[in-house]
């Protein structure tokens, strides 16, 4: 048994795991019941599990709990349906989701990207999302939502 204290969405959270190699994703979903980040491939190929750690978009499926240091933000900490973050509001405005399983990765990657890139082009947004998969075909709306969020800032 190993014990870790994580800083998630501004709160300190203690968790106990059997294996220090256990990915952060499983701890978030099962121990902290933060199900916004999702399992898609476990290989870092799709982006479903993205969280923000110290301002960087990170694949939580490949992040061992033992190295999950820093300020972790999950999509639940970004905003709520009642009080959405600018990126979330833009996704609603553009109806940029179909099934919604990739949405966590799209929103979190976009949020981390826009924190650094103030007036991106469509091509910049595509580059930022290059490693995120969407299976329903919402790409166009996601790019529009990201640009809308950028201009709203």
């Amino acid at each position: 048994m190993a014990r870790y204290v994580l800083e998630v969405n501004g709160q300190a959270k203690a968790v106990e795991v059997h294996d220090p190699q256990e990915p952060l994703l499983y701890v978030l979903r099962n121990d902290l019941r933060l199900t916004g980040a999702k399992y898609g491939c476990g290989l870092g190929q799709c982006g479903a599990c993205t969280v923000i750690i110290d301002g960087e978009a990170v694949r939580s499926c490949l992040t061992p709990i033992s190295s999950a240091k820093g300020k972790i933000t999950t999509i639940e900490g970004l905003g709520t349906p009642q009080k959405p973050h600018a990126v979330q509001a833009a996704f609603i405005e553009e109806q940029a989701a179909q099934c919604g399983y990739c949405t966590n990765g799209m929103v979190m990657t976009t949020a981390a990207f826009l924190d650094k890139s103030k007036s991106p082009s469509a091509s910049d947004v595509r580059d930022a999302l290059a490693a995120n998969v969407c299976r329903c075909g919402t790409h166009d709306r996601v790019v529009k939502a990201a640009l809308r969020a950028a201009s709203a800032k």
Partner: protein
Amino acid sequence: MDDAMLPPDRAADGAATLSRRGLLKGGGAMIVGFALGAPTGALAQAARGAKAGPPDHQAVDTWLAIHADNTATVYTGKCELGQGNQTGLLQVAAEELDMGMHQVSTIRLDTNITPDQQATSSSSSIHRGAPALRAAAARARMELLARAGVHLGVQPGSLEVRDGVVSVRGENGFRKVTYGQLLGDKPFNVKYDGTAPVKAPSDYRLVGHRPARVDIPDKVAGKYTLVQHHRVPGMLHGRVVLPRGQRGFGVGAKPVSVDEASIAHIKGAKVIRKGDFVGVVAEREWDAVKAAAALKVVWRQGEPLGDHNSVHARLRKDKTVDTVIANVGDPLGMMQKAAFVRGSSYQCPYQSHAPFAPNCALADPTGEQLVIKSPTQDVYSSRKQVAEVLGLPEQKVRIQFFEGSGTFGRSCYEDATQAAAIMATETGKPVRVQFMRWDELGWDNYGPAHAAEVRAGVNAEGDIVAYEYDGWQHGWTVTSTVSDSARTKAGVERANGSGSITVNPISTGSMYKIANRRVTSHGAPMVNYLRGAALRSPLDLSFAFASEQTIDELAVAVKMDPVAFRRRNIGDERWLGVLDAAVKAADWKPKVMGSQAESGDVVRGRGVALGTHHVSYGAAVAEIEVNRKTGVIVTKKLYGAMDCGLTVNPALVENQMVGQMIQSVSRVLKEEVTFDDNGVTSLDWSTYQVLRFAEHPEVTPVVVQRINEPSTGAGEEVMGATAAAIANAFFDATGVRMRQFPMTPERVLKALEGQQRT
């Protein structure tokens, strides 16, 4: 933290709603209901869920409940899969009830509660799901007006309704009563028979308009309850154990030996076996993941499969059951009299559903019924299959639908459901099973490969005079990998080897006036091919890829613009309508295809095509760039048009069209299940490639609205046209035809190389 300490899921009581109602209701009358401990809707629903369904189809109460706060719950038998059908079905119900969208909500499918409307498939939610709901809602309104008449002391004919408030016409709301006051969570106790008057389309206030999707705000906040999110006290995590990648259908995978000691080092991990089924459970999910990977199993599998490039030749040589699907005139004779004949053979790949969410289910055996939360597209069929696997009466199983991700047909959701059921029954504890990415891609029920031989003839004036399409494919499975292994039975396919999918006559030339046309389907038995089943717009991309390229070749032969050529030959104003809408959106400039080929490394082309699934009408124009050096094709712009009769919500259909067109780009350019003698080798997103952001086109969807025609499907009817338009654009750009897809850089370079030699 112990699982037992976890708070119950928001939706664990079955009262989850898919609506903005919850968001909007903060200060409303429902506060009273919450203060009493539970919302009235949830109480009424608990009573509803007490016994196994399906409920009486003809009872209005099966479809609707009116609550005291003047809201309504709508019970549909079609599930939300991301397509937004719940929003569309709520529009239909709210329209007939004269309620507002903010007053209606729906619940997820549940075999103890919701009506049996069969599978949510074939784009049928509005087409076949809405009529019963509309009729029940119309009957409900009639009953409510009768009661209001008594309550207000007037004839029902003198009443009007707005937002569920009934008032006497011409009195400016002086006398009024709400639906909630009239019925308030009490049953209607009436049946509908289709005779209650329904609204004329010209009176629609909601249908045909664009209310926003009800599910999106929660989805972008990470709050939407997907099947993967459920946890219950005392729950174990399970994983299936399968070889990496299936081999031939039939035998399945049989464990010759299972070395349980190989996972002894993983805390609490246990092997679960039933027949040939092997799974593992553990308290922590990561431990179950590790145990599934570590468990040493010696497998015996089916025959070697050959590979994905040789499968088409094998299909064409196989012993097939041949069915003539369409046969008019004398195509063979007329082919000889035609001014020009064009034709070729085509090879189309196996493709995977590749749901973005690996399938997942949670089975709880601790109550009177085995309750399973499942992402199935058909709750009642899943219940039957689980009951068969476990040897239980169907009534002892309760399936509650929750969305996984877009699934696009029969992905592994029955497998996950049955695996959870088996492991929960064997352990006596709730078990949550999620497939790993490689399970999902390696053990899918794939969209089958297809081989085609097409020939068509045209006269000198540009009339298509003869058309022949021969198509080869194998059948579809009716069982699942898990049920086959648990029962130690060979997999079963539909229709005893004749193949459950035949060539679609609508996709193969039916849109043109062709007096001499024959379409023949050659169905091979599935044994020792990959496991097949319906994948979105089943084989229509393949049919259109082969057929619409042939039509384009005829246009080139007579030196006509492909749009003008199609207009001349189309025999139906609705096909003409979508063609005109797509080319207008694209600002199509007439030309003979391939006649203005550009020079240089990167060349551009435009193409047009028609296509559909079984209903509705689709047309597309594609603009692409081909890099002759690298073989990379990038689709720059797509314009699509669809006529699906009365479009209930154009915004939803536009969204569906965009999704279909982008997925078609992915499928025609990238997606291919690869395999060799050892089994399927495309097991992750690098070996099963899908379209990514850098390659996605700008898409313009056009809905051709026909309010006086019945609603037909909108979820798969512009895919074939899109795939074929891209193929035709490739010829326009390069002067070369691609006879095989996906049109990968390797295949493109090979095709272009052939051109240089000739």
